[in-house]
């Protein structure tokens, strides 16, 4: 019968519409520019950083505190030099690679782990779900910077440790979003029908639920990219994130700070780089949400377990 056919049809996947998405993107100038800026920054970080690594570490004491916006010493010093006469521009490009690597890896680890736990937890429910949600509540309870400060105090500062700490701190965001959506999807007809046909739970999660949770998680991930980048930079600024020879934008701000009054550029440019990247990611993710649901362009905060409890 036609009606029952309709009921078991799975909702259309949103993949395979990349061309359409790009066309929509070109109609929103702000989001379009943001996307271009992000792509350009990633390209510069991937291609430029390996090439400029030596130049970025070249000290030239004659160029100490060389001011920006002058081509006297070539394009390499257009953004000035720091206290050891190193090019700010080159260090920004090398730092970009680390910053993107940390932010990207953190979001990838947190989103994939969080989504997996969230789907399993939401699908099966029961005691496992309850325990996982309490753990997530605990992670949320401790301010993320404090957690990172304490853990990185004990562990050695390194890219891997930084990524792990930040990923754990951001895990609850993905866990809640994917769990909430799984709870809703679990009751839908196409999942029920799969279950009635004897499909295994793992297959239902993978084939029926995952394709619909992924787009939501990706939108959240884009939003998180900005906040993770800010958090990582903050930790490096405090001296517990990364230390040389690993340089990220936060380290540069922290180093420049000592000469703030003599060479403002050593502080202002790395911070501006963080700002531009975070803003682009935020504008793009806001557009993604607006595109998915025109009315609810802004808030996509998942309902917290507290609101759930209050409303039940």
């Amino acid at each position, binding site marked *: 019968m036609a009606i029952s056919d309709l009921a078991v049809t799975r909702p259309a996947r949103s993949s395979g519409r990349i061309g359409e998405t790009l066309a929509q993107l070109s109609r929103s100038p702000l989001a379009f520019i943001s996307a271009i800026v992000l792509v350009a920054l990633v390209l510069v970080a991937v291609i430029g950083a390996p090439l400029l690594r030596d130049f970025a570490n070249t000290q030239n004491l004659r160029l100490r505190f060389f001011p920006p916006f002058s081509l006297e010493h070539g394009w390499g010093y257009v953004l000035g030099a720091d206290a050891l006469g190193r090019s700010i521009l080159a260090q920004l490009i090398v730092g970009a690679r680390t910053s993107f690597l940390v932010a990207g890896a953190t979001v990838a680890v947190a989103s994939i782990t969080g989504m997996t736990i969230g789907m399993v937890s939401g699908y099966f429910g029961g005691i496992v779900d309850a325990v996982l949600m309490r753990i997530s509540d605990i992670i949320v*309870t401790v301010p993320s910077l404090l957690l990172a400060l304490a853990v990185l105090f004990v562990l050695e500062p390194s890219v891997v440790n930084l990524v792990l700490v930040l990923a754990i701190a951001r895990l609850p965001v993905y866990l809640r979003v994917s769990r909430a959506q799984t709870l809703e999807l679990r009751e839908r007809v196409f999942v029920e029908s799969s279950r009635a046909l004897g499909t295994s739970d793992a297959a239902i999660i993978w084939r029926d639920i995952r394709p619909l949770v992924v787009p939501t998680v990706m939108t959240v991930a884009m939003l998180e990219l900005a906040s993770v980048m800010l958090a990582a930079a903050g930790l490096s600024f405090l001296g517990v994130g990364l230390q040389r020879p690993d340089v990220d934008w936060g380290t540069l701000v922290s180093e420049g700070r000592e000469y703030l009054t003599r060479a403002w550029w050593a502080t202002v440019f790395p911070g501006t780089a963080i700002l531009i990247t975070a803003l682009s990611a935020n504008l793009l993710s806001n557009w993604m949400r607006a595109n998915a649901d025109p009315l609810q362009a802004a808030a996509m905060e998942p309902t917290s377990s507290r609101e759930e409890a209050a409303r039940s």
Partner: protein
Amino acid sequence: MLKFLSVRLTTSLVALLGVMVMVFFLARLTGSPAALYLPVDATDAMVEAFNRQNGLDQPLLVQFTNFVSNALRFDFGQSIAQQRPASVAALSAMPQTILLAAISMGLTLLLAIPLGTFAALRPNSAIDRAITTFSLFVASIPDFWFALVCVLVFSVNLGWLPTSGQGSLLSWILPVATVMLHPVGVITQVVRGAMLETLNAGYVQNARARGYSWKRLAFRHALRNAALPIITIAGDRAGGMVNGAVIVSAVFAWPGIGQVLVDAVYNRDFAVIQAGVFVVGIAVILLNILVDLIYAVADPRIRIS
């Protein structure tokens, strides 16, 4: 209501236990807590004495029980850097931080609620786009960098504001602004989203059919119903203001729990780190209970059910 509060209270206790487990294992992650507690140049004899004194030669479960009973008495040992118990060092810094967070959150809500409401009143208008872009912009500024640039401009170049410390009223301006930065952006967005929903709800349309002004519709009828998500995010961000307090102490040498923790990191004063995480954890749990109570006040469906 009672059921709701008792469930929430249980959750808080579980969270407290979780925080204690975390702090406990933090010290044992590196293998030897002695390496963390004792100065770098400690002799083997000192390490042995420390282990014996703190029961570190006993089974892990016994150690944890001891730790919990000590933690509940706020006993985390002596601070190396300051000649006083670590818990005293952490606790005495809290009032400063709570005051900073309270003032910042008050001002944040004063700014974010009208901004989010005006954006929601005319969705996709020029005003909405301006407010949304502004909120995304402030949420994108690195707060530590914002603090530094403010010092450069307002303190060094213009000489209007003090660079550090806590003295006159003027010395509060930059720390409060730094702590407010991200919450203003995020809460404005949440207010906008929540208000979009309630402004379109039947009861607001019905109230409009009774001839009320838009101010009454927005601020009395829609806002009160949008309160739950706003309270949730405000509670979340109030707890997160400890993050801001850490930044503020690092840039402005602002006294408070942030200062204590940053100093402890630089002095490798592990007892204080432990005490600090524990005290902040307790403060956030208390904050959560407060938020639950505000929930019940804001929504009669929770109060009477």
